[in-house]
């Protein structure tokens, strides 16, 4: 009788131990998968933030470098409550305007000449952007950018060949 009881208890302990091992296995597996998923998400988000900030700054820098021979001005349009960074390129018989501005959550680029009125909705969206605040002091251009995820970036550029039109 007592041998039976001991055998039964031993078996119960063994079963509980097996169950505990299985639970440990399940918990560790879940932890590993959750940790991996979290890390993957963070890595992707970080890469996206990096890409967006690189695109934002590269667009502004290349726009200024490409057209630095022209006049660079900051234009305020009260009608749409927006501030644009404008590069004015004066040709022999026409004046071309290249404008960069933030509009409806995007960094936009718009080309017009002196015969067309500027309309922000006709611009081409380049990337997501919340705020775009250009400012010119002397020959230094400062642009404050706020990405969709509220990351703030500042670009400082020296206006080389062209310069600033007061």
């Amino acid at each position, binding site marked *: 009788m007592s041998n039976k009881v001991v055998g039964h208890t031993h078996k119960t302990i063994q079963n509980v131990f097996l169950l505990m091992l299985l639970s440990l296995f399940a918990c560790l597996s879940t932890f590993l998968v959750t940790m991996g998923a979290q890390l993957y998400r963070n*890595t992707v988000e970080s890469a996206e933030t990096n890409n967006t900030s*690189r695109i934002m700054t590269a667009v502004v820098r290349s726009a200024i470098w490409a057209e630095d021979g022209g006049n660079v001005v900051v234009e305020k349009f009260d009608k749409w409550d927006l501030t644009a960074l404008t590069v004015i390129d004066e040709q022999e018989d026409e004046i071309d305007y290249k404008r960069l501005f933030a509009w409806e959550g995007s960094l936009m680029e718009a080309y017009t000449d002196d015969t067309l009125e500027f309309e922000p909705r006709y611009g081409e969206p380049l990337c997501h952007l919340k705020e775009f605040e250009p400012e010119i002091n002397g020959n*230094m251009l400062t642009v404050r950018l706020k990405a969709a995820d509220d990351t703030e970036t500042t670009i400082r550029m020296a206006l*080389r060949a062209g310069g600033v039109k007061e």
Partner: protein
Amino acid sequence: MRDGHRGNALLVELMFVIFFFMLGAMTLTQLFGDAKHKSLQAKATNVSVMEAENVADDLYAAEDPEAKLQELGFERNGEGWMLNKDGYTLTVVRKDEDTEAGTLRTFVISSYGDGKDLFSLPSTRYYPKEVSP
């Protein structure tokens, strides 16, 4: 008796499974750690590139570059200047090249992070000398 053997076999089998799982988990954790480290390093490199581009333009436009560097938070470090930021360090070294016609002023902006050189960015400006008629 047969039940006991079967129970022991399952136990040993489980022990083996958990052992190999632990080995896998250890490797994966190491991989995750490396991935996180690389992600942070990529972020630091990205930020330092943008900061270096800003410093390069600041130095290009500055009439007094040393005052500008001080204003930006750089500190003297031997012959150059150094700025410690989160995850990277920027250093600036000035190299002037005098010629008969003028001076070529170059600032080499370098970034260090994670114990290695990340990149170097030169900012060069030419100052012509006055030409006698």
